[in-house]
C-alpha cells in the first residue's frame, strides 16, 4: 500500500487515489501537421521506465484534485509531488523529465503554440 501525500489533504492511503498514468503528455494543437506515426506517439505510446517515472494521480475519494508524482517503479519510493502544469524540481525528477524520449517528439513540439513544424 502506497501512502501518498496529497498536496491538499495530507498523507492518505493509495486506495483513495486513482493513477492517471504518464504525466506531461500535451495534446498536439497542430495535429493535422503530424503523420499517423507521429500522432501515435501522443495517442498510444507511453513511457514505461524501470526507475523514476513521472505520473499523474488524482485524490478520487478526497479532494478530487489532480497532481503529479515522481515515483520509482522498482522501489515504489515517491521522490516528489508537484502541481499540475509544473515540472519536477528535484534533481532526479528534472533528469527524468528532460531525458524522456517524449521531449523530442514532433507531437510535443506541435503541442506548443506556434511550435508546429
Amino acid at each position, binding site marked *: 500500500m*502506497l501512502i501518498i501525500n496529497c498536496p491538499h489533504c495530507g498523507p492518505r492511503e493509495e486506495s483513495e487515489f486513482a493513477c492517471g498514468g504518464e504525466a506531461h503528455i500535451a495534446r498536439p494543437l497542430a495535429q493535422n501537421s503530424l503523420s499517423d506515426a507521429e500522432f501515435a506517439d501522443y495517442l*498510444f505510446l507511453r513511457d514505461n521506465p524501470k526507475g523514476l517515472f513521472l505520473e499523474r494521480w488524482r485524490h478520487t475519494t478526497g479532494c478530487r484534485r489532480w497532481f503529479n508524482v515522481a515515483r520509482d*517503479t*522498482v522501489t515504489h519510493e515517491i521522490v516528489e509531488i508537484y502541481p499540475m502544469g509544473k515540472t519536477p524540481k528535484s534533481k532526479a525528477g528534472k533528469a527524468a523529465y528532460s531525458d524522456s524520449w517524449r521531449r523530442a517528439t514532433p507531437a510535443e513540439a506541435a503541442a506548443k503554440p506556434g511550435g508546429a513544424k
Partner: protein
Amino acid sequence: MASNQPDRGQRGLPGGKPKYSAFAIAKKAMNYHQDWQRAWRDAEPKAEYDAVIIGGGGHGLATAYYLAAVHGMTNIAVVEKGWLGCGNTGRNTTIIRSNYLWDESAAIYEHSMKLWEGMSQDLNFNVMFSQRGVLTIAHSEHELREMSRRVHAIRLNGIDSDILGPQEIKKFVPAINIDQSIRYPVMGGFLQKRGGTARHDAVAWGYARAADDLGVDIIQNCEVLGIQRQGGKVTGLDTTRGPIKTKKVGCVVAGHSSVIAAMAGIRLPLASRPLQALVSEPIKPILDTVIMSNAVHMYISQSDKGEMVLGAGVDKYNSYAQRGSFPVPEHMINAAVELFPVLSRLRMLRHWGGIVDTCPDASPIISKTDIDGLYFDCGWGTGGFKATPGSGHVFADLIANDRPNKIAAPYSLSRFQTGLLIDEHGAAGVAH
C-alpha cells in the same frame, strides 16, 4: 479457421533424449531413482547463433522449440537472466481458454488451444492439461445479454461455448452461491468445456527439455545488456556472459519489453503493471472447474494439491517490483467469499505478484520492428499463459520467415498507427 490443425513439426523428442514413461518410472525405481538424466544441458553461450530468443519463460521456450521442431532452426539459443519460468510463467493462475469475441483473438487463442490439446504428447512431458471447463458468470441482465452476443460470435468461429442458467450453474458447481439476494447475484454464465488449467512450471520445463533435445542451447543466468546493430540490422547481443553474435533476435520478456526495446531505441505502447494472485491453504476437492466473474472481477480454481487459486485485475500503477498493493487481493477475496461463502474461514497460504506488459487495446504485439532481425512478442498483459503454445508457434514462424503469418499479422506494431486495434477490453470476458 477452427478446422485447421497447427503444424506440430517433429514431435516426441526426435533428438534421442530418453523418454519419460510409466515404464521408465518403474525401471528407475530399481535404482532408487538415482540415475534420471538431466532434463536439459547447462549450455555455455557459443560465439554465434542463427537466432537468439531473449526470455526463458513459457513463450520464449515455446518459440525456441517451434523454431527447432517446425522450422528446423537448431543453431539457436534462449537467454534468460534468472532461471527458467521465474517470471510470469510461474506466477499466473494457469487458466486456459479460447472464448474471445473478436476473430483475430479467436484465431490465435484457438490456435493455442489446439496446441495445448496435444502438448503433453508433443513434448513427452505431462503438462497436466486438464480440460475442466471455464465458466464465466454474469451478474446482471445486461451482462447476460452481452454474454449471449459473445457466445454466438465465439460459436461462429467454431469454438465451443454454452450459455448456462443459474440452476444449471448450481448443478455444475455445487459450492457456488446462487442466492438472488446477494449484491452481485448469479444470473447466468457461459461455459467453455475445452477450457481448463495446466501445470505452468511443467510447460516451461517441457518446452525446455524438448528444445534441448533438438539442440537448442538454454542459457540461464545470462542477462542481456545491449543489442548490437549495424546499418539498421541486428548483429548481436551484449550479455553478462559475453557478446553473442546473431542476425535474429526474438524478444519475449513480458514486463521488461520496454527495457529491452529501449536498448535498440524502439518504443512500445506498453505499461508494466503488477498482477497479483494468491492461494489458500489446501482443502479437499470442492471446485472441479474454473470460475471467472467480470463484474466482481475475480477468477478462482482449485489446484490438484487442493489450494484455492485466486486472481483478479492489475494494480493501478506502473511497477517493475513483482509485488502489488493489499487492496487488490482484499478485493478478490471479498468477491470469492461472496460467490463461495464456504471459503470464508480459509487462510491464505501464499501471495505474489508478477509484472505484466499491458497494451492499450488489451491485445498482444507479435511484430517485426524497424530494425532488421529484431522481433517482439509482448503485450500479452494479464492473459499470456493460455497463449503460450500459440504465441510461440506463430512467433517462431515470424522469426524463421521474416514475415507474419495470417494469425500473427493483425498483431503488428503498426496497428497503433493505422488504428486497426483489436479491442479486447471487456470483450474478453474477465480481464483475460
